[in-house]
């Protein structure tokens, strides 16, 4: 349960809704009691036999966990927890020397973020399984994961932004990922009174290009919008390709007690951004280049992350680019904005609204052509609600947030307050079915459900409240996901499963798209880490002043070297551990007593580096943490730490050292055979 959930419940207006919602929910519970019988085959439907694979990969935002959870559907089994914005002591992500730079921002090293909206890269509006993008909300960033590795490869900081919530919501050929601020801020940042909000603050919508070959992101332009709160987004598709839609609330521009002050207007806006028009204006030099400092962290081909610093962005003002932005009035403090597979319908989740408004893209274009304006807001044309609306879903439930599509003409909207999924028709906007969720659904997800070709077999509810769904675990509970079968006329609840971190959005695609493209190991021959020891003969210990570089290898079941002397208190010891294995699923771990950071998990062929600063004299063990083999327990070593200025020379055991006769003969006799 998130803090915002608590706020919503405390809101007087919401309380009234909640109470009426409770009545509605009770009604729903009754009407759904009879469908318990329909789930009699649920176990069969979600059962994936031992050794068999799930039909879908699902990528779930880790929320305040800052990571991405990968689950199999329909089983709900956790397949991987991919570290993104948050350090992961489990494998050294953000701790190891090679990955530390991924946490760099203009605010310094920021080892955590709040990850909300995963987006699979698309080609022609269909998930292509190349990359997964996800936003960091707190210190605005967008990350890109490579889906052959299931690892984060790139993190781009978004300057001039606060609360990077309406992000990354990419365009249908992954031309752009977007980043809209849910919290307007002075842009660029400066010291102003919060009371000067309306004059001094801006909402910045950022468009970053995605290189079609490499996936590398680059900020193309930023649009300086009024100081509203830009909540969510989706790009147009098909006929509406070229446009991106952002919901906004707080068009009242309150700067305190927003739960009341941002809820005064009957309608806020969807901002329709013509990004092709923006490209024209930028090309015509209408954007101002403004200084901005931001980090662009990229994992190199050599497996080492590096930061490049951005120094400016191109900022476009709507006044300088007519036709760039139109406002679509939308009730009421809208949250989600979702575009149906045809690209024609733009569905808003007016979280305090009693209806679901559905805008028409073609009507919007006509309204623009006809100048059917209700007025202007901050100089931006406001279209007439009647001129753009295609229809309203009546009595859908309470608290509509997000809508996904099944590709068969149906839409599914999550209802936070009445805690249900409501299925309705895109033909007549009539409610067809409703299914309760446990409890208070936020996002929902259908595989490909925001793309041009949904795989409309399952819907996943990502619930905000867990309560009694699982065995209780003290005050803090896991998050609650629920899987529904949507292949028939009526939705059927199939499965509950817990997830890590508050679930926001998720994405899924057929496993067949990714399964056979998985990398099993890194080729040792291509390891380009400058400190890698690619065989045991090239292991070494080099002292340079108070810095000691240990180029070490690990292979079942020993480290080389595993005896190191001549280290002094206060040295910075860099353990560069190369995993010599070239076998699938044989990672080695590395941990050393007293390390102030984490362990390392090193994949076959990879080099990872941990810095250790010994604080006292003694002899300290290090060992492999990943049960690698029958002799894993024996995979250990010692490092001797002497007093500062000690005369103990640097020495270590290595094959050459042994050959020189300085080593107990045959100590590694067994090991030599396997590794020569």
């Amino acid at each position, binding site marked *: 349960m998130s803090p915002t959930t608590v706020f919503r419940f405390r809101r007087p207006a919401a309380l009234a809704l909640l109470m009426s919602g409770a009545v509605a929910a009770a009604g729903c519970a009754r009407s759904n009691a009879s469908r318990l019988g329909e789930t009699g085959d649920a176990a069969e439907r979600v059962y994936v036999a031992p050794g068999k694979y799930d039909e879908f990969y699902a990528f779930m935002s880790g929320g305040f966990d800052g990571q991405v959870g990968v689950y199999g559907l329909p089983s709900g089994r956790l397949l991987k927890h991919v570290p993104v914005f948050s350090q992961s002591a489990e494998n050294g992500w953000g701790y190891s020397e090679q990955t530390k730079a991924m946490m760099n921002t203009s605010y310094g090293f920021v080892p955590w973020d709040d990850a909300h909206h995963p987006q699979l890269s698309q080609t022609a509006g269909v998930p292509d399984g190349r990359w997964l993008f996800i936003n960091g909300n707190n210190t605005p960033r967008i990350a890109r994961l490579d889906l052959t590795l299931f690892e984060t490869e790139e993190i781009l900081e978004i300057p001039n932004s606060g609360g990077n919530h309406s992000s990354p919501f990419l365009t249908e050929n992954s031309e752009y990922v977007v980043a809209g601020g849910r919290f307007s801020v002075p842009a660029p940042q400066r010291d102003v009174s919060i009371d000067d909000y309306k004059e001094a603050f801006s909402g910045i919508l950022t468009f970053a290009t995605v290189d079609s070959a490499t996936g590398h992101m680059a900020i193309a332009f930023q649009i300086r919008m009024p100081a509203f709160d830009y909540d969510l987004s989706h790009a147009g598709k098909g006929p509406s390709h070229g446009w991106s839609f952002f919901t906004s609330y707080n068009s009242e521009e309150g700067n305190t007690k927003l739960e009341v002050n941002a809820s005064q207007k009957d309608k806020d806006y969807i901002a329709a951004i013509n990004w092709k028009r923006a490209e024209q204006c930028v090309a015509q030099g209408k954007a101002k280049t403004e200084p901005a400092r931001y980090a662009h962290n990229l994992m190199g081909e050599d497996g080492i992350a590096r930061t490049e610093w951005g120094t400016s962005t191109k900022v476009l003002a709507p006044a300088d680019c007519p036709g760039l932005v139109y406002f679509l009035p939308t009730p009421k403090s809208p949250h989600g904005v979702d575009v149906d597979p045809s690209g024609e319908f733009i569905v808003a989740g007016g979280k305090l609204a009693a209806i679901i408004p559905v805008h028409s893209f073609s009507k919007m274009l006509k309204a623009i052509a006809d100048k059917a304006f209700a007025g202007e807001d901050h100089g931006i044309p406001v279209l007439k609600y009647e001129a753009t609306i295609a229809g309203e879903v009546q009595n859908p439930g309470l608290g509509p947030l997000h809508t996904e599509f099944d590709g068969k003409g149906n839409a599914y909207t999550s209802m936070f307050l009445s805690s249900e999924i409501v299925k309705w028709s895109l033909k007549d906007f009539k409610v067809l079915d409703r299914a309760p969720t446990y409890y208070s659904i936020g996002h929902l997800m259908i595989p490909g459900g925001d793309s041009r070709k949904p795989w409309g077999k399952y819907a996943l509810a990502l619930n905000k409240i867990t309560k009694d769904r699982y065995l209780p675990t003290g005050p803090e509970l896991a998050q609650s996901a629920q899987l529904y079968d949507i292949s028939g006329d009526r939705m059927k609840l199939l499965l509950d499963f817990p997830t890590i971190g508050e679930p926001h959005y998720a994405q899924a695609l057929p496993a067949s798209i990714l399964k056979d493209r998985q990398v099993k*190991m890194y080729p040792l021959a291509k390891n380009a880490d400058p400190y890698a020891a690619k065989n045991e003969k090239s292991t070494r210990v080099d002292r340079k002043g108070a810095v000691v570089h240990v180029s070490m290898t690990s*292979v*079942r*079941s020993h480290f080389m070297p595993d005896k190191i002397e001549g280290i002094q208190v206060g040295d910075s010891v860099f353990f560069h551990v190369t995993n010599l*294995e*070239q*076998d*699938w699923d044989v990672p080695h771990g590395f941990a050393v007593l007293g390390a102030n950071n984490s362990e390392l998990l090193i994949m076959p062929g990879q080099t990872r580096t941990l810095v250790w600063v010994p604080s006292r004299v003694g002899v300290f063990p290090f060992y492999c943490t990943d049960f690698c*083999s*029958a*002799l894993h327990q*024996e995979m250990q070593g010692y490092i001797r730490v002497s007093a500062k200025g000690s005369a103990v020379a640097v020495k270590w055991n290595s094959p050459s050292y042994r050959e020189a006769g300085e080593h107990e003969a*045959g100590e590694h*006799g*067994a*090991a*030599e*055979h*396997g*590794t*020569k």
Partner: protein
Amino acid sequence: MRHSSRIAVAVAAFLLLAVYFAPLWRIELIAPQYPEGLGLRIWVNQITGLKPNDLNSINGLNHYIGMHAIEPDEIPELQFMPKLLAVAIGAGLLVALIGRRVPLYLWAASFTAGAVAGLGDFWKWGYEYGHHLDPRAAIRVPGMSYQPPVIGTKQLLNFHATSWPDIGGWILIASLACVLVVAVLEWRRVHASPARGIAVGGPVAQPLA
């Protein structure tokens, strides 16, 4: 030799060229930890993994039981077998060219002897690897040796080992069989009916004589 016999011998010799491009033998290993399997291919001049890193992985695993690492560069047979094969092919072509029975018999006999010796050598290497174990090995099972089968299957601790001819091996077997059949036919033709043998063999041999 009959014309058809000489052609058959030439074909058998040419077939052996394929052995340069196809592995002779394959050993597959399956264990609980290796459902996808590991394996080796034995070529006339090299030993490779069935998958890119299999040889490396097998050597890594073998060190636990003290088996010597398989280092193709240290196996002299892999150096001279390609030359021996070239001699065999050359000799076969020469037999076809000469078209006389005695060289045929000699070649068939030495080919057979070579193949048997090759298998014997393969067995010997398997024996050496399987029996000459490092006494300091981590895993020592009293009485246990790890000699892979030449043909067939065998359980070696957690690994189920299977050894069979590979494409090159089957081609070699086919070539050898062809030569032996020709030799036997030629032998029977001459010894069963000498007169007919001269009558039929004569004209074929003449143009080349």
